[in-house]
């Protein structure tokens, strides 16, 4: 009989502790892009350990995130695609970037290792349009005279689900190819002229790894984890750039974030000699005058912590944190816009 009583007392103590910590801590809720989920949950865990404030983030996709914040069911939404300033002001929302990543082209041609193949934006567009169909096409050969390119059909692999990765990829191709822009356009889901669709970054990685002579696109972390052959891409300054955290950072730094209000900036095809051309950023959306001021304030405190102290966590997960000048601008924007 003694043991159960002890257990009961212990349980009561635990319950009391949980109750106390719950009453002190704020629960912050967010929803949106899957792309930021790994780094956001790492930041959230560290932040909760430090302050006790819990962040409950549902990675339901950018479209879902935008819908949820517009319905005011969450404290913040996250989207890979920035909303236009008009749309933001109509909904009473503020917007700021939180983290930078990059999309990289990956190929599976026997004998070609990571970082060896060189590509240009128009070439990628022509391949994804189905105009260039073979690996030994003269355009690819002239860019890569040292590589042995086989007389094989290219199997294009794309995302089957709507995604921010696709948005940035198609946005880049629209910027560099007029034909892509008029025939296909940009979006989180698009009407692919050719190829097969894999679900998620892991689906595309699996397809590219399995299918010889395939060509796909994934986020850098997936390319590195799955040991895929990523490629160099020529940027707007005319240099061939290797995808890396440094070149993503260069793209973020060279972009002019203050040109448009609400940080409306898609950083593909960024200027700068060393910028990776297909860098991408994720944006957070919050109400300018929120109904629940306390939890919005807590969410801002969390993002302040993440932007100022979260660089190392971001780096280990293959994300790039924002340059410090941009962090400063974002914090100014908060004090001006969010009350």
């Amino acid at each position: 009989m003694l043991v159960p009583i002890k257990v009961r007392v212990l349980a009561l103590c635990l319950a009391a502790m949980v109750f106390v910590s719950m009453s002190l801590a704020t629960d912050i809720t967010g929803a949106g892009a899957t792309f930021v989920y790994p780094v956001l949950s790492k930041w959230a865990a560290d932040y909760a350990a430090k302050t006790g404030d819990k962040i409950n983030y549902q990675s339901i996709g950018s479209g879902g995130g935008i819908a949820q914040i517009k319905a005011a069911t969450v404290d913040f939404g996250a989207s890979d695609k920035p909303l236009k300033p008009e749309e933001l002001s109509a909904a009473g929302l503020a917007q700021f970037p939180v983290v930078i990543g990059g999309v990289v082209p990956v190929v599976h041609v026997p004998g070609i290792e990571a970082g060896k193949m060189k590509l240009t934006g128009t070439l990628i567009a022509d391949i994804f349009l189905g105009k260039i169909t073979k690996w030994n096409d003269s355009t690819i050969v002239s860019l890569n005279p040292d590589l042995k390119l086989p007389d094989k059909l290219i199997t294009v692999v794309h995302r089957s689900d709507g995604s921010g990765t696709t948005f940035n990829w198609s946005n880049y191709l629209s910027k560099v190819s007029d034909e892509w822009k008029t025939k296909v356009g940009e979006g989180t889901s698009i009407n692919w002229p050719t190829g097969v669709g894999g679900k998620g970054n892991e689906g595309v990685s699996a397809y590219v790894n399995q299918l010889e002579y395939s060509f796909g696109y994934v986020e850098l972390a997936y390319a590195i984890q799955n040991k895929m052959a990523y490629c160099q891409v020529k940027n707007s300054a005319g240099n061939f750039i290797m995808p890396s955290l440094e070149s993503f950072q260069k793209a973020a730094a060279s972009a002019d974030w203050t040109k448009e209000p609400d940080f409306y900036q898609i950083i593909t095809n960024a200027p700068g000699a060393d910028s990776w051309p297909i860098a991408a950023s994720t944006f957070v959306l919050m109400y300018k005058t929120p109904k629940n001021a306390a939890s919005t304030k807590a969410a801002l405190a969390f993002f302040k912590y993440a932007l100022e102290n979260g660089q190392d966590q971001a780096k280990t997960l293959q994300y790039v944190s924002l340059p410090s000048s941009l962090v400063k601008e974002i914090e100014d924007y908060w004090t001006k816009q969010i009350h």
Partner: protein
Amino acid sequence: MLDVKTAVMDPLVRLDRRDRRADKFFRLAVQSCAIFVLIALLGAALSMLIGGREAFSTFGWKFLWSKDWDPVQKQFGALIPIYGTLVTSLLAMIFAVPISFGIAIFLTEIAPRWMRLPIASAIDLLAGIPSIIYGMWGLFIFAPFMGAHVDPWLNSHWGSLPVIGALFRGPNMGLGMLTAGVVLAVMVIPFIAAVMREVFSTVPSPLKESAYALGSTTWEVVWNVVLPYTRSAVTGGIFLGLGRALGETMAVTFVLGNTHRLAASLLEPGNSIAATIANEFTEADSSLYLSSLIALGFLLFVVTFIVLTIARLMLRRMARLEGN
């Protein structure tokens, strides 16, 4: 007799009345259970129809046979997903029905008694595996096998045949209609086989023994005695499998290739209704896009209903031809 009953056994009459009331209540209870299913079905179909009305009113009947699926230009049509759903389910049934039949015959007629339980449990276990597991198995193990061995063989041996050759010419990717059909077949076999085994074992022994006594082979007994005796239940089992194949989502998404293109070849990637919805629902950012996806869901209802109705009509005709 009646007079005696009412006059002498008055308490019994009262009991009778109470019984009748209980019976009435019971009937009402089970009736409402059945009606609940109808209401749930109608409610789901109606809310899909309402959710999809923007797509139906924008595209009209064209939505049914348009090949377009362009989220950027906001042009949507259901032809390719409907085609993919029907073809993969048909393929699944072509593989699954004979194999399930074989399993059930073996377990009820041929297998020694000690073997029946382990195999039957293995089949039941197969039915309990979640579809995502089949999808991952399909993607990482089965699709590469198809791409390396089956697709090239089909291409070189059957690809040059007249007319049906077009079905088997295509890239050796291991992804596509055929792979999806086979994975679906593996998924529905447990359902069909379990029902068949169950009903085959209800056939009275004297019937079978008489046939054996007349010198019938096992096949003749199964085909002429067991199958006619259990036909409607067997068909029910096949419907159960077909229903599952039509609506299967995750496993198909992994191996079908998810491409909105109409292709004659079974080796080419395609798309199904359920896979399209699962893939694109999260990022459907315009109301017309979302509405088109919900409209697809409604069409899945309609397609399933039509397929099952056709199957029932065929069954009835078969029964009439045989004169029962």
